[in-house]
């Protein structure tokens, strides 16, 4: 697949100056660590705000958003460079269709990602959902099956629609922690990862893509708890990108799973020998026993013991 056209990251200029400074600072930090490019994979169920989040991070309307409609079936890669640093964000279609994992969408995503390296997985869901269900688990499972458990070491959970008032006067922070906890729990179950290993590494960030997002005095978009979310998100991304876990390189083996045809091939001569000695030979012996024990008709038996006659 042809590499995407890398354009100058002009959208960064639309951000508030304070945000811009912070972002450039973070980019600089990455460059210091010799990281010149970053690939973020955005995944999640349909209609949770994946594309909007991508648009918010880039600062332009790079991916068309269509409310009330399922998005296009193909993943889109957006590449922006700024000061010698390239940011790739891969937006993917929703993984759920009609209550099931859309195998084909997943398959397309996998093929799209072939020979790419994923530095960060941004798992997007909504904050303003009270319940988690089996679908979340299925999505987590699908992601794990596709890219392996290691991808969760590079994962960030992003909860959109953060500018939301919790019901019944529940404190915002409490609601947030409850929501993130229950989501993480189901993701963990879906990914079949042990509790400790998981919770420690997956940060949860809040996202508000709405244009009516509250802003602070320096014109930064802020969340109800007062944090400016874009810098916070990029900060988390940077942290994850720089953590000890290796990035996920998507190659053929990863997509198709380990080649089952190669498994145990070395043992075949042994298997064959065992079959010969433990199955074929004993069955042969059983047949010989059958022949000996065969119930012969009376005339045959009688003559057998009677043939000492002289002739």
């Amino acid at each position, binding site marked *: 697949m042809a590499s995407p056209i890398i354009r100058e990251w002009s959208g960064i200029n639309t951000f508030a100056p304070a945000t811009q400074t912070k972002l450039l600072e973070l980019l600089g930090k990455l460059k210091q660590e010799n990281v010149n490019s970053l690939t973020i994979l955005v995944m999640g169920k349909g209609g949770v705000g994946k594309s909007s989040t991508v648009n918010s991070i880039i600062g332009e309307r790079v991916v068309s958003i269509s409310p009330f409609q399922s998005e296009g079936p193909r993943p889109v890669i957006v590449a922006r460079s700024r000061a010698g640093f390239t940011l790739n964000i891969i937006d993917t279609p929703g993984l759920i*269709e009609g209550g099931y994992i859309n*195998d*084909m969408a997943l*398959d397309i995503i996998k093929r799209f990602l072939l020979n790419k390296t994923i530095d960060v997985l941004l798992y997007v869901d909504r904050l303003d959902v009270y319940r988690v269900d089996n679908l979340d688990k299925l999505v987590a499972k699908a992601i794990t099956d596709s890219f392996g458990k290691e991808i969760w070491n590079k994962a960030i959970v992003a909860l959109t629609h953060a500018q939301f008032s919790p019901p019944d006067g529940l404190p915002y922070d409490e609601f947030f922690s409850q929501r993130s906890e229950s989501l993480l729990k189901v993701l963990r179950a879906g990914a079949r990862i042990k509790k400790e290993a998981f919770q420690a590494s997956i940060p949860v960030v809040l996202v508000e893509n709405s244009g009516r997002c509250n802003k602070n005095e320096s014109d930064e978009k802020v969340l109800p708890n007062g944090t400016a979310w874009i810098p916070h998100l990029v900060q988390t991304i940077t942290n994850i990108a720089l953590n000890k876990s290796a990035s996920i390189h998507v190659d053929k083996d990863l997509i*198709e*799973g380990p*080649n*089952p*045809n190669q*498994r*145990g*091939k070395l*043992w*075949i001569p042994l*298997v*064959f020998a065992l*079959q010969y000695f433990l*199955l*074929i030979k004993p*069955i*042969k012996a*059983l*047949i*010989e026993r*059958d*022949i000996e024990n*065969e119930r012969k*008709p*009376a*005339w*045959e038996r*009688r*003559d057998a013991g*009677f*043939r000492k*006659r*002289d*002739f």
Partner: protein
Amino acid sequence: MSSSTAPNNLAAVIPSSCRKRPPLTKCNLSPSDSNSKPTLPRPPLFKAIALSSAASILLHCTPLSPFLPNPLAQFGGGGTTGGGGGGGGDGGWFHGGSGGDQGGLWQRMFAALADESQSQEWDSHGLPANIVVQLNKMSGFKKYKVSDISFFDRSERVRVGTEDSFFEMVSLRPGGVYTKAQLQKELETLATSGMFEKVDLEGKTNPDGTIGVTISFSESTWQSADKFRCINVGLMQQTKPVEMDADMTDKERMEYYLSQEREYKRRIDRARPCLLPRHVHAEILDMLKRHGMVSARLLQRIRDRVQKWYHDEGYACAQVVNFGNLNTNEVVCEVVEGDITKLDIQFQDKLGNVVEGNTQVPVIQRELPRQLRPGYTFNIEAGKQALRNVNSLALFSNIEVNPRPDEKQEGGIIVEIKLKELEQKSAEVSTEWSLVPGRGGYPTLASVQPGGTVSFEHRNLQGLNRSINGSITTSNFLNPQDDLAFKLEYVHPYLDGVYYPRNRTLRVSCFNSRKLSPVFTGGPGVDEVPPIWVDRTGVKANITENFTRQSKFTYGLVMEEITTRDESSHICANGQRVLPSGGISADGPPTTLSGTGIDRMAFLQANITRDNTRFVNGAVVGDRNMFQVDQGLGIGTQFPFFNRHQLTLTRFLQLIPVEEGAGKPPPPVLVLHGHYGGCVGDLPSYDAFTLGGPYSVRGYNMGELGAARNILELAAELRIPVKGTHVYAFAEHGNDLGSSKGVKGNPTEVYRRMGHGSSYGVGLKLGLVRAEYAVDHNSGTGALFFRFGERF
């Protein structure tokens, strides 16, 4: 000779029935009847066994010509008018026994009966009614009609009913027409039979001109005996009786009797023991003890008992020919068992002439049971076995196994095997036309397709049952490249040599086949998965070693090219799937190992089958185990190296012991079945194990449950016999053991299949067809299926 003193040996209680004449009548029994005892006339007659080309076993019973003074034989055997009158001639190859004074009796008797008149015209006696006429007072010129025959036992002063065993000795029939000479001969026969001390025949005139015959007799008796011995006198030199000179002095007479006695002792000592088992011996001893005096009737009963045993056991040629040593405390029963002196294999042409056959004799000899060889006693069961075995060669259109008396050795039997060979070369063409209605509902000329099969066979090459056969089948001879199926096979039996008992057969064949792959099948709710055809073309060479009729070991090499094609016969490398939008994408699971749609590979194939199932009144009972392994050699596209194996275990458990025999009900049977299939190494999708289908998990379509690397199928079926067939209930389960993802592309998941499933149901066997209602446990719905053949 109207009366005689009881001889020391009672010869010819039994008229001989084995004859050298060609059969007069044949009765055919179908194979299913072959178990039941044929209603043969007694004394039993010779049987020839024969086989028709239709491969059904026919029993040709050849009742002998009714030269015997035995009404049952006459009527039962002939079925023709009045007995066929075939007597005389060379009959009576059993001589009248030793010691007695009636040597050559039978010759005389047969000669006498031979001139029996067949005329049905009769003369009135011309006398007043109700007059008793002595036989010698009768007119020699009249033909008397006998209205009835009665026996009168003088010693007991009673009339004897027709059920008496003596009755069968009289050849006269009520309603028959006889001359005085015939009646006299009849009387002579009775008198010389040794059964009677005294016997007379007199007539009583009836008003209508017929006469009633009364035979008054007094039975012969001998001193009581407490020992019984049965000896086989077959193949022994019959002692020629020395004519006793009427002028002998008492001393000479005494000497004569003593020498006779000594000679008889020697004879008994030389005779070989009989097959007669101890329990029959004991039974007869019991009869002797109970009866006290040995009477002619008792001897008849003993003879019947002994012969019954022989004939029940299949020794059809066994005959009691004489009772010797009478008037001592031991009764000696002389039996000719029917020892085989020669085995004669003949080939006949279509007209029945003896010809030189193409088939080599050892090929036939190795199929014959040892019990047909010279030195053994002829047994009809051995004959039937020979018939079945020879028939299984499929080389002959007609097979007859025919015992006949040996002319050179008295009491010997020559077993003749007469074979009519099938044509060596045969070719067959069968055609079919297919018409497809066109657009307007009428078939167009272009839709008319001539199809059919051309097959040929060249059998029995070099007389060693080697054969070449081939066939070509297509549904359209105008365009055969579409679906041409061919097979060419060379079969080489007796690989180790025809004299060597090891039975190995080499088969080399070229073949092709086209099958719909069950791997590319949708699960429940998946509308339609575009089908994939798997074409295989290749060469196969294998050696089959037959251990028993059912158990065998086959091993060989297979080289084949596998091509996968889509609906329109284009080679395709991947399975297709229908997109939600309705389009078709061709990026499904790969169909071949190479990824191009064409694979070539060579592998070893071995299959060992142990089958000791047998039929108990029509129900299969026993074990069947099969293990098959395909071992890839790394030769072929992508160097395929694999070990694909399957183990099948089936148990047919008889639940209730039953008595075996024709017409008896079969037992209920529980069938337990397990099948494991697995593969290590390269596994192309066409070799994956599929679950579901009539031979896997019933109630599902072929492959509906999945296609996997390892599978396990378990089944249980209970068969209850009902009115000549059986009903059954079954439960089955198939599981992929989580190995569906072990098949490249995971076709099970792509086509949304469960990977496992159970079913249960009930069914009824209707001949070859099974009608069953099976409930598919995954969806809980049931359906009625009709299937051909057996599941297990």
